[in-house]
C-alpha cells in the first residue's frame, strides 16, 4: 500500500558492496558488509546506521493529533449497533467533523510554529506537515459530504460550496484588505474580490462590495442596480424549508433566463467587469475558465460551474462533471496529480480507490485508518474477506497502531486500536506489548495491567519473569520475589526463597519483612517459599512473645516435612531459647517429637567434608540440644502430671 521509496545510506557501499540489516522497534539498522568474503579486508571503521521509518510519530505537535483522534476513535467504537441507522447518521457526521477539527487545530499550531521558529529547516518541516494536513482535511471533508452525510440533490451543491469556501479562504483576507483600504473601489484587487465572491456563490457579500463602486459612479448607477438585482434574486435552495426541489428548479430557471436576457440586451456592455459577472451568472464556461487564477483549482471550477448551470445536481451525475471540469481546467497536456486523482475518485464515489490512493500518497497511516474506520461504521465498505487482515479497515488500523507502538509513550493509545481489531488485534498486541521496554517498575506495572486486563497470561508471566530476573541480578531479593509470585513461577520462587534463607543464615535477620509477612496464599507457590513464609511467621510469633504458637509452628515445619533437612539443625537451634524458658512451652508429646527429629537428623548421612572443628561445633550443638530437650521433658511431665487445684 505504501509508495516505493529509495533511500541512500551515507558512507556505505564504498569499501564493501553488501548492506547488512537488523529490524528494531520502529527502525532498521543497516551496515556495510560483505557476505562473500572475497573482497579486500575492510578499510576504515565500519558504521552502523539507524534508519527510522516514520518520523511523524515523533513530532510533538502531531502527537496531539494522535491522542485526540484516539478519543474520537474510541467513542466511535462505542456507538451501539442497535441504534436505528437514521439517528446514527448525524452521529457519524459529527464524529467526522470532530476528526476534522482536530486536524484543523493541529494545522494551526504547526503554522504558528512554522512562523515563530528560527530554524529554517524546522520551518520547512512544519510547512510540509501543514500541506499534508491540508490535503488530508480537504479529502476528508469531501468524503464527509459525499459519503457520510450523503447529501441529496439540492443540498449536495450547498455542501460542496461550503467545502470550496472553507478551503479557499484567502478570498476573505483579500476582501478585508480591499474594504479597509482608503478607497476600496480604486483598490487594484477590487474586481478580483467581487468576482471571487460571485464564483463562490456569496452573492450578498458581492453586493456589499459592489455597492462601494455604485455609489461612486452615479452615471452608471442603473447598471449597478440591475446587477444588484440579479445577485439579490439569485435563488438559493433551502433544504430545511418547505420549497420542493421542482419549485426551486422552476424559480432558478426563471432567474437564469433573466440573466441571459441581460446578456442579450447588452445591459452591461458599458462595464466589462459587470459583463463578466453576468456571464458567470449564466454559467458561461469560457468566462469561467478565464477566471483560472481566481478559481485556482479544478474542483473550485467544478463547483462554480455546477452552481450556475446545474444547482440541483444529483450525486450519480457528479462524476461526469468532475471529469470534464478537470480536463477543461487542467488542459489536455497536464497530467493530474495524486491529489486530483484522489478527489476525482471521490466524485466518482469510488471509495476503495480513494483509500488506496491515499495510502500510497500520504506519509502516515493516521488518515486512512481513521477515515476507513469511520466509513466502515457507516457500512460503506464492501467487506474484503481475506485472511490477511479481516478487511481493509482492520488492515489499516493494524498498520496505524503498529506504528504508534514504536513510540515510547504513544504505544498506550495503540492498545485501544488493537482492541477493536477482531481478527488480528489480539495477536498483534501480544507481539507488540512484550517488546515495550520495561525501563522502570512503574512502566512494567503499566504494561502488566494492560496484559492482565486482557487475560494475556503468557505475556503477564513473561513480564514478571523478566522483572524478577532483573531484580535478582541486582540483588533486590524482595522485588524479585514479588515479581516471581506474580509470574507464578514455582522453580524461580524456590530459587529466590533459598537466596533469602542463605541471606538469613549469613546475616541472622530477614530483609523485606513487609513482603514476607504478607505472603498469604502466595506462599503455596513452592515448598521452599512456603517454608520461608512459615519460618518468618515463626520469627514474628517469637518476637511477639507468642511462644506456644511459635513452638507449635516450628515443630510442624519439621514434622510436616516443609523444612528442608539441611535446615533442621537451624530450626532445632531456634527451639533452644524456647526450651530454656522458665515456663513450659513444648508439651511432652512435642518434646518427644523434637527429640525424634534430632535423632533422625543425626542418624542421617554424616557430612564427610566437615572439618574437625566444624564437627566439634555440630556435636556440641547436639549435646546442648539433647540436654535442653531432656530438661524440658522433665518439666513438661511434671507440669502435665500435676492436677491444677
Amino acid at each position, binding site marked *: 500500500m*505504501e*509508495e*516505493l*521509496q529509495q*533511500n541512500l*545510506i*551515507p*558512507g*556505505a*557501499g*564504498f569499501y564493501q558492496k*553488501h548492506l*547488512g*540489516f537488523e*529490524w*528494531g*522497534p520502529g527502525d*532498521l539498522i*543497516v*551496515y556495510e558488509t*560483505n*557476505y562473500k*568474503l*572475497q573482497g579486500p579486508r*575492510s578499510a576504515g*571503521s*565500519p*558504521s*552502523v*546506521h*539507524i*534508519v527510522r521509518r516514520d*518520523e511523524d510519530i515523533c513530532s510533538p505537535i502531531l502527537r496531539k493529533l494522535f491522542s485526540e483522534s484516539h478519543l474520537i476513535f474510541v467513542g466511535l467504537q462505542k456507538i451501539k449497533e442497535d441504534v436505528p441507522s437514521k439517528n446514527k447518521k448525524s452521529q457519524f457526521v459529527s464524529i467526522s467533523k470532530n476528526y476534522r477539527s482536530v486536524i484543523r487545530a493541529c*494545522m494551526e499550531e*504547526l503554522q504558528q510554529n512554522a*512562523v515563530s521558529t528560527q530554524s529554517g529547516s524546522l520551518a520547512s*518541516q*512544519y*510547512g*510540509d506537515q501543514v*500541506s499534508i494536513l491540508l*490535503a488530508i482535511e480537504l479529502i476528508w471533508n469531501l468524503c464527509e459530504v459525499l459519503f457520510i452525510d450523503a447529501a441529496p440533490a439540492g443540498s449536495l451543491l450547498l455542501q460542496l460550496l461550503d467545502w470550496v469556501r472553507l478551503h479557499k*479562504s*484567502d478570498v476573505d483576507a483579500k476582501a478585508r484588505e480591499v474594504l479597509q483600504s482608503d478607497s476600496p473601489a480604486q483598490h487594484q484587487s477590487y474586481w478580483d474580490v467581487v468576482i471571487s465572491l460571485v464564483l463562490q456563490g456569496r452573492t450578498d457579500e458581492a453586493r456589499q462590495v459592489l455597492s462601494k463602486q455604485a455609489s461612486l459612479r452615479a452615471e452608471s448607477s442603473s447598471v449597478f442596480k440591475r446587477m444588484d438585482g440579479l445577485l439579490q434574486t439569485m435563488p438559493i435552495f433551502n433544504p430545511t424549508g418547505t420549497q420542493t426541489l421542482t419549485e426551486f428548479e422552476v424559480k432558478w430557471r426563471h432567474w437564469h433566463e433573466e440573466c441571459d436576457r441581460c446578456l442579450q440586451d447588452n445591459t452591461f456592455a458599458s462595464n466589462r467587469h459587470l459583463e463578466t459577472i453576468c456571464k458567470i451568472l449564466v454559467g458561461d464556461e469560457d468566462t469561467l475558465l478565464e477566471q483560472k487564477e481566481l478559481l485556482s*483549482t479544478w474542483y473550485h471550477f467544478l463547483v462554480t460551474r455546477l452552481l450556475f448551470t446545474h444547482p440541483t445536481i444529483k450525486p450519480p451525475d457528479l462524476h461526469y462533471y468532475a471529469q470534464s471540469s478537470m480536463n477543461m481546467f487542467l488542459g489536455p497536456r497536464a497530467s493530474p*496529480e*495524486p491529489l486530483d486523482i484522489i478527489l476525482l475518485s471521490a466524485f466518482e464515489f469510488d471509495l476503495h480507490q480513494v483509500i488506496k490512493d491515499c495510502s500510497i*500518497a500520504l506519509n502516515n497511516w493516521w488518515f486512512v485508518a481513521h477515515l476507513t474506520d469511520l466509513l466502515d461504521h457507516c457500512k460503506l465498505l464492501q467487506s*474484503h474477506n481475506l485472511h*490477511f487482515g479481516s*478487511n*481493509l479497515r482492520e488492515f*489499516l488500523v493494524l498498520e496505524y497502531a*503498529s506504528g504508534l507502538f514504536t513510540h515510547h509513550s504513544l504505544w498506550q493509545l495503540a492498545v485501544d486500536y488493537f482492541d477493536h481489531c477482531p481478527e488480528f488485534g489480539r495477536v*498483534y498486541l501480544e*507481539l*507488540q506489548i512484550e*517488546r515495550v521496554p520495561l525501563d522502570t517498575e512503574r512502566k512494567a506495572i503499566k504494561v502488566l495491567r494492560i496484559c492482565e486486563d486482557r487475560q494475556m497470561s503468557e505475556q503477564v508471566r513473561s513480564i514478571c519473569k523478566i522483572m524478577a530476573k532483573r531484580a535478582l*541480578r541486582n540483588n533486590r531479593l524482595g522485588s524479585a520475589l514479588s515479581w516471581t509470585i506474580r509470574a507464578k513461577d514455582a522453580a524461580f520462587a524456590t*530459587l529466590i526463597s533459598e537466596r533469602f534463607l542463605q541471606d538469613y543464615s549469613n546475616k541472622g535477620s530477614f530483609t523485606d519483612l513487609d513482603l514476607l509477612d504478607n505472603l498469604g496464599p502466595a506462599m503455596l507457590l513452592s515448598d521452599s517459599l512456603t517454608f520461608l513464609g512459615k519460618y518468618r511467621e515463626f520469627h514474628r510469633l517469637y518476637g511477639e512473645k507468642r511462644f506456644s504458637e511459635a513452638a507449635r509452628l516450628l515443630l510442624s515445619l519439621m514434622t510436616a516435612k516443609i523444612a528442608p533437612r539441611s535446615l533442621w539443625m537451624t530450626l532445632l537451634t531456634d527451639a533452644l531459647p524456647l526450651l530454656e524458658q522458665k515456663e513450659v512451652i513444648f508439651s511432652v508429646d512435642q518434646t518427644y517429637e523434637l527429640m525424634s527429629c534430632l535423632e533422625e537428623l543425626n542418624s542421617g548421612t554424616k557430612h564427610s567434608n566437615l572439618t574437625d572443628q566444624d564437627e566439634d561445633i555440630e556435636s556440641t550443638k547436639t549435646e546442648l540440644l539433647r540436654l535442653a530437650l531432656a530438661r524440658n521433658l522433665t518439666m513438661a511431665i511434671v507440669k502435665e502430671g500435676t492436677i491444677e487445684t
Partner: protein
Amino acid sequence: MFVAKSIAADHKDLIHDVSYDFHGRRMATCSSDQSVKVWDKGDDGEWHCTASWKTHSGSVWRVTWAHPEFGQVLASCSFDRTAAVWEEIVGESNDKQRGQSHWIKRTTLVDSRTSVTDVKFAPKHMGLMLTTCSADGVVRIYEAPDVMNLSQWSLQHEISCKLSCSCISWNPSSSRAHPPMIAVGSDDSNITYSGKVQIYEYNENTRKYAKAETLMTVTDPVHDITFAPNLGRSFHVLAIATKDVRIFKLIPMRRESANSSGPTKFEVQVMAQFDSHNSQVWRVSWNITSTLLASSGDDGCVRLWKANYMDNWKCTGILRGDGSPVNGSGHAAALSAVGVPVAAQMVVGAASAGRYFFPHLDSPRAGSRLAHLLPPPSLIEQIYEPDLSHAPQIRQRHTANSTNQPTEHD
C-alpha cells in the same frame, strides 16, 4: 524513511551481524576482528558502547540475544569452529560509573569440527536452548537445564543434514498444536540437485527430531531462512534467501490417527517470489508482526517487502549505500546525529520523492494549492544497474574442509 543516526562501530574489520535485544534497548555487533561489542541506548536516545571484547579466534559470524527471561545472555558463533555463551554480570560500581559492563564466557561449545555458521536460541517456551549449525552439515541443539547456571550445557540432539549448513530458524509458534520445528538452509554448491531447505520436527514419542519436509523446489544455495511469527494461524510462513527471495506457506496436513507417530506432512505453497535483487540474496528477516520482510542482496540494496490486505506482495522501500567514503571515522565510537531529511537524498530524482510529494509552503496558508504532486505509482520505474561483478561460481564462505581450515579472506 531517513537515516536518523550513524554510529561509528569502531570494529577493526567487517561487521558480520548486528542484533537487537528483545526490547530494542541494546544491540550487539560482531566482526571479523574476532570481537563482539554491546551497545546500550541511553536515556538521551544515544547509543553507547558498554562492552567490547575478543570472543573467538576467528571471524564472528553471528551474535544473538537470549530472551530477557533468562537474563542478559548472548551467544556467538565463529569460524574458529566454536559457539560461545556470554553472560553479563553486575559489575563493580566504578564500572557502572564508567558506563562499562562485564561479560563473562559461560561456555564454549566445541562439538563442531568446522566453522559454526549460525547460532539461534530456541523459542522461550522450550526453555533455554541453543542451536548451532555448521559447515559440516550438523545441527546441534543444546540445553541449559539449570537456567541459573549457564556454564552447563548438554548436547541434546545432533541432526545430520548431509549438506553444509548455512542458517537455521526456529518456528516461533508456541501453540500446542505445533510441535517444535526447525528449518535448516544449506549453501552447499557441490550438490546441485537436492532441496536446500530441510524442516525437522520434534517427535514427542521418540524424543528425537525427524525430517518432516524438504523443499525440493529450492535447489540453489540458501543463505538465510526465517519463520514469520505465527499470528495464531494454523499454517507457517517461511522466508528464504537464495538466488531470490521466496516466501513459503507450510500448511500442516491432517494426520491419520493410525499413523500419528510420524512427522507432520506439509502442503507447501509459494506465497511470493522476488528476483529484484538480480542475484544472490544473503539475508531475510521479518519485522515484529511480520507485516514487512526485509532482504539484502548482491545488488547492494536492502529491500522491504509488504503484503497488502489482499495478500499481494510488493517492494515498498529500498535502502542502498551512496558509495561515498565515510568521513571522520577516526573518532572512537563517535556518535554523529545526521538526521538527513529523506527528500534530500533521493536516488532517481522526482520519481523517488516517495511519500514526500507535498511541497513545503513558503508561507503556510490555508487555502493555498497543494501543487507538485507525484505521478501515480505505475509511472515510477525502478532503476537497477546490472551487477556484473559477481562471477557465476564463487568459492563459498564455508568450505567443507574439516581438517585444514581455509583462510577466512581469500
